[in-house]
C-alpha cells in the first residue's frame, strides 16, 4: 500500500525559470506504455511475407543486414508502422484537446468538421477527379477549410464551444450530404476506392509521410501539454477562467489550432478514423486519472498502440485485408467496454 501511495504522489519539478508538477503514477504509466509500444512496433515489423526475427529487425533498423532485409525493414515496413503510431498519437491528442475545450465528452475533432470536410474533398477527388497523387493534400485542405468556415460562422463576440457544436453539426451534415450524393450518383466501380478511403486506411506509406506527420506532432505536443493547465481552469467555467487571468479566447484559439492541425494531418494520411479521437481520451482518463499534461501524453501513446495494433491485425491476422479504421472500432470497442464496465462497477 505504501508503494502505491508514493506512486500517486505528485512531485514538483522546479528550476529557476520553470516549474511543473509531475504525477508519478502517470509517469510510470507513460513509461510502461512506451515500452509496450516499442515491443509492439518491433513485433509488427517481423510480420509479413518475408519472415524475420526480432534480432534481424533490430539490426536492419540500424543498417546491418543484407540488401533484401534492409529494403523490407527500412523502406517497406518501418514507414507504415511509424505512420500508424504517429497518426494514432495525433488523433488521441487532438481528441482530448477538443473534449476538454468543449467540455463535452461526446466531442471529437469532427466537431469542427475535420473529418467530414476532408472526406467530401477526398471523395470528390477520388470519384470525380480520379487522381490519387495529391490526395493527402486535397484532404488536408478540405479539413482546414471546413474547420475555418465553422470557426468563423461560430464567431460572435468569441467562439463559444456550444455555438461551435451546433454550427459544426450543421456544416458537417451538409458536407456529409454532398458525400452521400456523390456516392449514390456515380457508378459502383468508380466509387469503390472512395468508400474504402472513407473507412480510414493506411497503405503505401513512405518516409515522407512519416516526416510530415511526426513534425506536426512534435511541434504541437509541447504547446498542447502547456495548454492543459489553463484548460483545467477552463473546465470550471468561463467566468472563473477570466477571473484567474487566463486569456480565454487566445487559449481557445490555440487549442483549436493545435487540435485542428493534428486531426487534419491524420485524416490527410489515413482517412477518417473515428474511434481513436473520440474514445482513446476516455480510455486514458479511465486508466490514468483526470486530465493533465501527463495524461495527454499517455493518451497519445495509447492512441499509437491501438492504431498500430489495429493495423497489424488488419494486415496480417484476418482472412480479408481490411482498412485499419474498420479494425480500430472492432478491437478498441471491447477494450473500451471493459474499461467502462470496470469504472462503473467501481463507482
Amino acid at each position, binding site marked *: 500500500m505504501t508503494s502505491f501511495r508514493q506512486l500517486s504522489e505528485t512531485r514538483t519539478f522546479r528550476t529557476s525559470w520553470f516549474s511543473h508538477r509531475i504525477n508519478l503514477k502517470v509517469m510510470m504509466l507513460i513509461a510502461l506504455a512506451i515500452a509496450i509500444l516499442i515491443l509492439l512496433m518491433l513485433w509488427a515489423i517481423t510480420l509479413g511475407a518475408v519472415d524475420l526475427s526480432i534480432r534481424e529487425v533490430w539490426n536492419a533498423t540500424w543498417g546491418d543486414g543484407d540488401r533484401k532485409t534492409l529494403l523490407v525493414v527500412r523502406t517497406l515496413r518501418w514507414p507504415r508502422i511509424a505512420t500508424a503510431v504517429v497518426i494514432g498519437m495525433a488523433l488521441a491528442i487532438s481528441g482530448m484537446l477538443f473534449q476538454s475545450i468543449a*467540455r*463535452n*465528452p*461526446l*466531442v471529437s475533432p469532427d466537431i469542427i468538421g475535420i473529418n467530414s470536410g476532408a472526406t467530401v474533398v477526398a471523395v470528390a477527388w477520388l470519384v470525380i477527379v480520379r487522381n490519387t497523387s495529391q490526395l493527402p493534400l486535397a484532404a488536408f485542405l478540405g479539413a482546414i477549410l471546413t474547420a475555418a468556415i465553422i470557426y468563423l*460562422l461560430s464567431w*460572435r463576440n468569441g467562439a*463559444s*464551444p*456550444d*455555438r461551435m*457544436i*451546433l*454550427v459544426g*453539426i*450543421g*456544416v458537417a*451534415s*451538409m458536407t*456529409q*450530404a*454532398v458525400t*452521400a*450524393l456523390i*456516392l*449514390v450518383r456515380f457508378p*459502383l466501380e468508380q*466509387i*469503390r476506392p472512395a*468508400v*474504402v478511403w472513407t*473507412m480510414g486506411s493506411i497503405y503505401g506509406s513512405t518516409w515522407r509521410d512519416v516526416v510530415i506527420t511526426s513534425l506536426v506532432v512534435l511541434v504541437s505536443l509541447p504547446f498542447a501539454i502547456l495548454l492543459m493547465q489553463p484548460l483545467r481552469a477552463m473546465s470550471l*467555467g*468561463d*467566468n472563473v477562467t477570466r477571473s484567474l487571468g487566463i486569456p480565454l479566447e487566445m487559449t481557445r484559439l490555440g487549442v483549436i489550432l493545435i487540435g485542428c492541425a493534428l486531426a487534419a494531418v491524420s485524416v490527410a494520411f489515413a482517412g477518417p478514423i*473515428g474511434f481513436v479521437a*473520440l*474514445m482513446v481520451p*476516455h480510455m486514458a482518463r479511465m486508466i490514468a486519472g483526470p486530465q493533465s499534461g501527463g495524461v495527454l501524453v499517455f493518451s497519445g501513446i495509447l492512441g499509437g498502440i491501438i492504431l498500430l495494433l489495429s493495423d497489424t491485425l488488419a494486415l496480417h491476422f484476418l482472412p*480479408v485485408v*481490411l*482498412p485499419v*479504421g*474498420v*479494425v*480500430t*472500432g*472492432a478491437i*478498441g*470497442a*471491447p477494450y*473500451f*467496454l471493459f474499461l*467502462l*464496465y470496470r*469504472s*462503473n*462497477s*467501481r*463507482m
Partner: protein
Amino acid sequence: MASAVAAQSEQTPAPVRRAPKSRTALMFIGLLVLAGLAALLSLFSLRFGSLPVTTREAWDAVFRYNVDSYEQTIVREMRVPRTIIAFFIGGGLAVAGTVMQGVTRNPLGDPSILGVSAGASFGVTTAIFLFGISTPAQFVWFAFPGAAVASVVVYSIASVGRGGPTPVRLALAGVVMSSLLGAWTSALLLMSEQTLDLVRFWSVGSVAGRNLSVLWTMMPFILPATLACLLMGHQLNVLSMGEESARALGMNTQRVRMISSGLVVILTGASVAVAGPIGFVGLATPHIVRSIVGADYRWILPYSFFTGAALLTTADTVGRVIARPSEIQVGVVMAFVGAPFLIALARRRTVAS
C-alpha cells in the same frame, strides 16, 4: 451548459417574464398554424414531383379518384404513400430527438446515439449480404430487430454497476457499440459489391418507392410511441433542471430515463426501418423549435412533431423537383434544408441545451 449560463448572466438582467394566460393561447394558436402549415406542405408534396400534374388532378386523386387517369394513378399510388410516410417519420424522428436531447441533456444527443441507426444498418447489410434481399419492404424486417437489439445491448452495458445508466455512460456505450457494428457493416460492404450497391442507396435515407404496406407494418410502433413521447413533456421539464433537483422533487429519474429511451428506440428503430437513417431531423428540429418556443417541453414536443413533419415532407418534395426527371434522396436534401436554419439559430442567440 455552463458557458451558456455564464454568457447570459453577463448581459443586462432581463425583466422577469410572467407567463400570462394569453401566452398559452398564443402558443396554442401557433401550434395550430404550424399544423396547418405542415398539412399544406404535404399537399404540395402531392402536387409537385417529376411528373407535371395540375392542382385539380392532384386534388381529384385524393378525393375523387379516377382509376383511368395516369396522372391520378401516379399521385395516388406513388405520392400519397411517400407523403404520409415522410410526414409521420419526420414528426416521429423529431419527437424522438427532442426526448433524447432532454434525457441526455446534451445538444449532441440524438437517437442514433443509442446505437439505433448502426443497429439498423447492421441488420440491413447483413441480411442483404446473407439472404440477397433487395426491396425496402424486406429491409424493414431486418432493420427494426437490428436497431432494437443494438440499443438493448447498449442500455445493458451502460447500466452495469451502481448509479445506473447516466446520460454520459449511455452515450459512450452507444458510440462504442455503433463503431463495433459499423466495423462489421464496413467489412461486409468491402467484401460484396452487390451489398455495397444496395446499401449505399438505403443509407442515404429515402422515402421513394415505399408503399403504404411498409408504413402500416410499422405504424403500430410509430404511432403509440410518438403519442407517448408527446406526453413526456412534464417529465422532461423536471429532468432538465438536473439530476439532483429532479430527484429532490421526487422523480424516479432512472425509470423516466428507461421509459423514454425505450420509446425513442421503438420510434427511431421503426422510422429507420422504413426510410433509412435520416439523422438530421432528430438532431436539428429540437434546436430550431427550442429557439422559437422556449424551454417548456410540453410545448417543444408537439411543435417538434409538426416541424419535423413539415421539414421532411418539404425536403422530399424539393428533392423530387430540383433534379427532374430523377430525384435527390430526402436524406441529402434534409441536410441542406435544415443546416442553414441550425447555423443561423446558433449564431442568433445563446443556445439553451
